């Protein structure tokens, strides 16, 4: 029933930020004392389908690179400070017209996540 789904559009609306802040479930992994990834799940404020987004705080792109080590140290400090703006892009599994190979409805919204509060 794809004609009942909203068309795929890469767009954002500040109102969606407020709606999603009330409905999103946010967890830090592996734990809140030394988080490496923020997982945001909940309904898309546009198409209302469930979606999940993983925001990396620590990456291991080049595990032995000197600058990578420095970047990771800086990232660890950033992770320790306890806040991050996370932009979530809808990645629901529903079929949206004009989505092509892309998943979701194209909507994005921004959440401000604080931990250690």
């Amino acid at each position, binding site marked *: 029933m794809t004609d009942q789904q909203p068309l795929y559009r*890469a767009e*954002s609306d*500040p109102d969606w*930020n*407020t709606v*999603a*802040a009330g409905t*999103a479930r*946010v*967890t*830090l*992994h*592996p734990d*809140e*004392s030394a988080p*490496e*990834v923020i*997982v945001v*799940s909940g309904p898309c404020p546009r198409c209302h389908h469930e979606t*999940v*987004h*993983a*925001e*990396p705080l620590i*990456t*291991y*792109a*080049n*595990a*032995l690179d000197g600058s990578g080590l420095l970047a990771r140290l800086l990232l660890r400090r950033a992770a320790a400070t306890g806040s991050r*703006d*996370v*932009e*979530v*892009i809808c*990645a629901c599994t529903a079929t949206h017209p004009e989505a092509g190979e892309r998943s979701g409805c194209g909507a*994005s*919204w*921004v*959440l*401000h*996540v*604080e*931990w*250690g*509060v």
Partner: protein
Amino acid sequence: MAVRVTAGAPSTPASRSRADASRGLLAGELARVRAQAENWRNGLAALLGLLTAVGIVKGPDTLQGLSGGARGAVGLLLLGGLLLAAGGAFFAMRAAFGLPRRRVADASLEELLTRERLTVRRAVRDLRRAIAAGFLALAVVTAGIGLTWYGPRPGEPGVQIVLTDGSALCGTLVGMDAKGLRIRVKEVERRVPSGRVGSAKSVPSCP
């Protein structure tokens, strides 16, 4: 600790692009780390293969003449190097290929993502351990080989001759003919007639 979620700043094209990119960042991470580990594994294997070749070429005969303490030290160093090399190879292969084990299936996507992060972290840690063990093995085996070349050798092998009067001479055999033999004892060449020679044998070193 608590997590607080509020509405963020409005999205911009740049922030949207970054969010798009970060989606792919996690996906290829484990594969990248494993590819690095596999390359390091091959490099470390070549390095340790070189050590093996050197060890075979020199062989156990280089231990001849070494003092007992030096022999023991060489043995310990080579054994230590072997164990370090084996450990390094194991860590490198575990980083490159993982180690399947039976575990409870993840009940939620969060658990799955957490497990993936931990897997990547473990692979990075294993890779670092492998490199440390590999270079440490190189250093230890090099020390062992160095000791076989330059280790203390208490004395040179020689000949001990017991004369018919009961006295003994120990030194380097210079020459021998029908009349007798010539032996160098402490830089002095001495001649011993055949009739005075009671017995003779080679010894690893003279006192």
